[in-house]
């Protein structure tokens, strides 16, 4: 239904789809222009950065496509539509996913795929690397999916704090577009152990590129991504459950 409604204003729909493709495309052009000035950024070439960028972009793209609407949970709390949803025999999270499901988000994913296609040229491919790339893409999507859910839960307590979540979802996406070597060691530690966005692409891409970890962390961190994905999903599920339990209707 939401797919059809978005096609109700066709000119606007196509502009929006082209727009979200362009927004992300120009975003990569911005990065490429940086490489016009310098040959490498933090020791990484453009193709290698494209690899990081593509994986992160697909991760957040898929996460956003599936659950991006969860950002609106505060709106449902404020307007009271959450009450109606709670009485329906379908899990709340599924209903919120389906609400305002926006096909145009495909624009962002397709751009990330194009950039990734350019980035794969930096890798010496072997069978295990191909398999791990698949694992990486699934984990990246799962991590961003969990971030969208977990940080939206804050809205059960304060309804107008949507932007707070952006710092972690879109912020995490922006951070992982760059090689972690541009950040100081403390920041990397934070991004590994506290808000684990480094597992979206960094550790596995180091393996794909046959690079030793510049921060001296063990190589087996690469295979931790799915574990981290499961962990963040668990935390997100707990946060969601606590949020819904905490929710008391607006009344009336």
């Amino acid at each position, binding site marked *: 239904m939401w797919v059809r409604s978005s096609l109700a204003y066709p000119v606007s729909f196509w502009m929006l789809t082209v727009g979200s493709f362009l927004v992300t495309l120009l975003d990569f052009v911005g990065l490429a222009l940086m490489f016009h000035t310098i040959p490498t950024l933090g020791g990484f070439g453009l193709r290698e950065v494209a690899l990081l960028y593509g994986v992160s972009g697909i991760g957040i793209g898929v996460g956003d496509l599936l659950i991006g609407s969860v950002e609106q949970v505060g709106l449902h709390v404020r307007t009271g539509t959450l009450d109606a949803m709670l009485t329906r025999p379908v899990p709340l999270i599924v209903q919120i996913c389906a609400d305002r499901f926006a096909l145009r988000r495909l624009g962002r994913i397709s751009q990330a795929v194009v950039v990734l296609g350019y980035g794969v040229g930096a890798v010496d491919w072997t069978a295990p690397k191909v398999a791990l790339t698949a694992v990486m893409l699934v984990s990246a999507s799962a991590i961003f999916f969990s971030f969208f859910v977990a940080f939206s839960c804050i809205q059960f307590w304060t309804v*107008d704090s949507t932007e707070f979540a952006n710092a972690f979802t879109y912020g995490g996406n922006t951070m992982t577009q*760059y090689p972690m070597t541009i950040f100081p060691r403390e920041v990397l530690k934070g991004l590994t152990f506290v808000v684990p966005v480094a597992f979206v692409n960094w550790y596995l891409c180091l393996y794909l590129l046959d690079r030793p970890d510049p921060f001296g962390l063990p190589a087996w961190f690469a295979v931790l991504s799915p574990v981290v994905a499961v962990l963040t999903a668990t935390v997100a599920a707990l946060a969601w459950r606590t949020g819904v339990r905490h929710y008391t209707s607006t009344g009336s």
Partner: protein
Amino acid sequence: MLYVAVAVRSFRRYSTYRTATLAGVFTNSVFGVIYSYAYLALWHQRPDAGGYDATDAVTYVWLGQALLMTVALWGGGTTDDLAERIRTGDVAIDLYRPVGLVGWYLAGDLGRAAYHVLARGVLPTVFGLVLFDIALPPTLAAGLGFAVSLVLAVVTSFAMRFLVASTAFWLLDQTGLRTLSGVLAIFLSGMMLPLVIFPEPLRSIALALPWASYLQTPADIWLGHRAGGAILDGLLVQVVWAAVLLGACQLVLGAATRKVVVQGG
């Protein structure tokens, strides 16, 4: 003054949402930190890229975060209300007010910008000052020039957003064009990467376009890369673009009210 009254009320309207403001300041600061490290990496390798040094580059990042909401780079502000009112037909009420539509919404948008520069502009900058080495305007002229330039930036951005919102008279829904125009603004204002490090001829083209007014011109005045007469040159270009675009707003509005039947009964 009527317009001042409109601006003051708009200021109060936006200042109602305190938690939203704090959340926004936090997000601006996180992005400020990310871009600061990215730019530091770039300027570490090319210490004179675009005529900036590393301190200039980091200052530029935080100015960008401060102006993002103030200038409404992504779109938004009172022009979103206008687009919604065109879609619902409420714009008819606006049209028979004894005040010009452009002036009415511009006053509201300036009130919004005044709030955003205080809340979303100053707070992240303080955060940036604590974490990084940020340059303050070198002279009084630079400080004053920046203030004037910022007002012109808001007016230019308003006129552009007003034009986008006006398309709703014909398309009914502005969302698509609003996104496209936001993309262009982010790229061509220098928000994504300072225009000064763009390769030629892209650099000269981008610097001559109205979007340079949003961030690059105010930032160059703040940093002292435009000093003396160059400040006035920069401001003059901004004034010309603002006047041209506001003129275009009036023309489009005229065409719209003559040709378009307002939605609803």
